[in-house]
């Protein structure tokens, strides 16, 4: 009997939700486990780095890596997985487009560290001690990974073959992806394994969107009583659906929450935030600068809104700090 194909999972800067989504395959997971040989899965099983290092290059059929790259350890592991795998799948928003951790690209490394180690409300650290990268005690050296200044999507560090979008990806998409891969009928390299059409296409509230929408303000979901039957944009709730790839089946929308864009843009788009910005602003009602500004002021955090999952892969990538110039 030929060896079962080897599959690995690895997580970088992520919340664990992606791992959870694998478990969400529910009984299907058993089929997966039966079909493949899992060689690495830090969340679920006890494999060591050296185990992977010992494997032959390219011997893993596919590695699903989730999470953004934030530390040198993640970089190192990503590179190791790349070396040992035939195919790498960036799994979930963080690996795909940088995800929520990517929002930290609005801050300098030092700002992040200072907040975490000194200023956050739950921290007590009068000496302002910070972890050292390398400590030698009793003759043995202990090193810690370096915390990068910049958060990166996976393909900004290693070559990525496919992407599974979503925060997290849906079990359905994962299952479809695995089936395709195991069948050997590989899609074109670099493909995002989800429909290349915006979410509105599959939105359950699609038919209720008017054709003459004009915004005078943008509202936030908690601030109004949402009509569950009507398009959220029609209720002035800022929904990223028109600029976001479909495939999630509109789960948030069905739960009366607007799309926040986790599937990233369609393949035609270079910058998801710029596009939704363009679409929404075009539909603002006011014609004079003052009126326009009043409407736009109701979007309190444009970067966090338009680039919630995609800041590291946006055209600007990161906030521009003059000190780096």
């Amino acid at each position, binding site marked *: 009997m030929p060896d079962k194909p080897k599959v690995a999972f690895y997580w970088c800067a992520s919340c664990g939700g992606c791992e959870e989504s694998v478990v969400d395959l529910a009984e299907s997971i058993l089929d997966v486990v039966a079909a493949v040989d899992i060689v690495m899965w830090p969340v679920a099983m006890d494999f060591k780095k050296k185990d992977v290092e010992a494997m032959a290059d390219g011997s893993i059929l596919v590695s699903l890596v989730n999470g953004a790259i934030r530390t040198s350890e993640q970089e190192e592991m990503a590179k190791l997985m790349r070396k040992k795998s035939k195919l790498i799948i960036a799994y979930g928003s963080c690996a795909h487009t940088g995800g929520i951790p990517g929002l930290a690209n609005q801050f300098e490394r030092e700002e992040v560290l200072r907040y975490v180690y000194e200023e956050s409300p739950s921290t007590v650290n009068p000496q302002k001690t910070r972890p050292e990268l390398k400590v030698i005690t009793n003759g043995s050296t202990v090193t810690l990974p370096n915390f990068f200044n910049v958060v990166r999507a996976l393909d900004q560090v290693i070559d990525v073959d496919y992407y599974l979008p979503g925060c997290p990806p849906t079990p359905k998409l994962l299952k479809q992806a695995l089936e395709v891969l195991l069948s050997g009928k590989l899609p074109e390299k670099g493909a995002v394994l989800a429909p290349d059409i915006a979410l*509105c296409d599959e939105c359950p509230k699609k038919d209720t*969107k008017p*054709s003459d929408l004009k915004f005078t303000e943008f509202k936030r979901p908690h601030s109004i009583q949402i009509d569950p039957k009507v398009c959220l944009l029609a209720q002035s709730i800022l929904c990223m659906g028109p600029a976001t790839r479909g495939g999630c089946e509109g789960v948030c929308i069905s739960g009366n929450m607007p799309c926040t864009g986790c599937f990233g*843009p369609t393949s035609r788009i270079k910058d998801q935030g710029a596009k939704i910005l363009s*679409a929404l602003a*075009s539909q603002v009602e006011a014609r004079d600068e003052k009126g326009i500004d009043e409407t736009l002021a109701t979007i309190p955090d444009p970067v966090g809104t338009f680039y919630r999952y995609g800041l590291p892969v946006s055209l600007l990538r990161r906030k521009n700090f003059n000190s780096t110039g």
Partner: protein
Amino acid sequence: MHGNGHNGTVRIGFYICHCGHNIASIVDVKAVSEYIKSLSGVVISCEYKYMCSDPGQELIQKDIKEHSLNRIIVASCSPLLHEHTFRTAVEKGGLNPYYFQMVNIREDVSWVHTDMKAATEKAKDLSRAAVQRVFHHKSLETKHVKIHPDVLIVGGGIAGIHAALTLANAGKKVYLIERNPTIGGHMAMFDKTFPTLDCAACILTPKMSQVKNHPNIILWTYSEVAKVDGYVGNYKISIRRKPRYVNEELCVGCMDCIEKCVYKEGKTPDEFNVGLSKRKPIYIPFPQATPQIVVIDRETCIEFKSGRCKKTCVEACDRKAIDFKQKEEIKEIEVGTIILTTGYQTFDASRVPFYGYGKYPNVYTSLEVERLVNASGPTGGELILRDGRHPKTVGIIHCVGSRDKNTNRWCSRTCCMYSLKLAHLLKEHTDAEVYNFYIDIRAAGKSYEEFYDKLLDENVHFIRGRVAEVSDWAVRPSEEGKLIIRAEDTLIGIVRRVPVDMVVLAVGMEPQADSQDVRRMFNISCSTEGFFLERHPKLAPVDTFTDGIFIAGACQGPKDIPDSVAQAGAAAAQALILIDSGEIELEPNTAYVVQNECSGCRTCLTICPFTAISRDEAKQKAFINEALCKGCGTCVAACPSGAIKQNLFEDEMIFSEIDGLLKMESPACC
């Protein structure tokens, strides 16, 4: 025609034009050409003295064949000038014309920069951007639209009259719209015309009646354009016909009603005589008014004010033409082309308080003097001043409201000549001493300088100096009771005080008060001073930036009669070209929706001002009607999922231009 040709590889021909010295003296064309040769995809890169010349165009055609080129770039002047020329050349060479791209290194580079190195770098950047851009070009079909043969002419002055007759004589149907009760415009008010001194009425009124009687001309006076819709070849116009309260079909212009009006004397300043006489509420502007139809002025007519007039006019009219119930009427017409001949207004002399217009009765504007010396004018051509005197000395002040940054900075072009004419007429009528105060005499027309010579021989005084003030401040007994003109005689270098009986202000020409509204209605541009803007100051002087709309006469800038007539003829000819060609080519720069990429989000539907986008309810996708799309690309920029594209302006084209422009590391950046 071949598309990508040659196994799908892109083969670019790049041509850089010297434009004589225009480009080559500032841009190192050789360096640009050599640099472009080094770029990927470029098969041929060469320089040539005049690319727009026949040999230049033939060079492109020859190279397309010999080198199997499938992309052509010409770096020369503005695409607004020669893009069409080169596209045609490319097409003749056997290539789809939209594989062509133009780089503007004259208007955008050599004519605006002096630094050769910087200009050359800029030309390289712009050329490289084009090289990257043409990789994404596609073969496209040119759009054609049919031209409706009827023409709308707005404004019935001499320019409108001439344009209307020209087109009508060529067999085209013309709608001539005039907002006043009669056509004739300013010219009808003039006495004699310079330099020939023929009588304005004598040469104008025959043309006015021709207009009235021409079977191809529909003349609507007392009417205004209310709305303009559509585009070249297919304009839909709404025209508001104001009520005259006199039935046009019935009135024969006998004027019995005017005589019988309850007002025995006129009370309202007569517009035609610029307020120098009075008219009744029911009137005809002047004896030769066309059409010869009476009009009732609602503002001053007792019937309208109180409703209790004896209506003697109604009784007087045999034909029962007077109709107080007449209502405003809106006419809808369809035309293919439009000529605007809306004319000018004279400068309001009271805006220059130094000259005392409105304060001293004997200060007149030139237009008032035209009426004053006219045999059919308020004084029957006798020169009687407002205070009853006959002037013995007259000062004519040139450039009132012209060449002055405090009022209007432009030269009104006609004032020098009409001032000379008035000087002659005043001398003829009164034998007065006439002083002309001028800054420069501009007599640059056929026989104009000769007319100036004649005036010098007539012993008219010419004092080169702009007048600072007209006042009644006498410091010598000889100045008592006179108006004193103070000016420096700049040729002598001494300030003079010239006492006169009459002052004539040669007022300038300015845009009509509502020129901005008219411009907006017709979607054309105005130059900074407010005159309508021509498409090109030299090569397209009667075209506008909106296809199918032409301009002629003083609405485009100050102009005398011969120039207005010449322009009117030119505008008529331009309209004829369109009409007789039957159809017009349009840029295929329309937007289109890639159906399987559209999510049906409706963003575009809210954006298109031309309602060219609709939603296919069955497919739940957007769909663009190519015939309605005008190619602005606003929906393309707004489509949040990149499903709408635009021919000639695809995203990839613009991204590659940006990339091409910025690729070169500027020297020692940072």
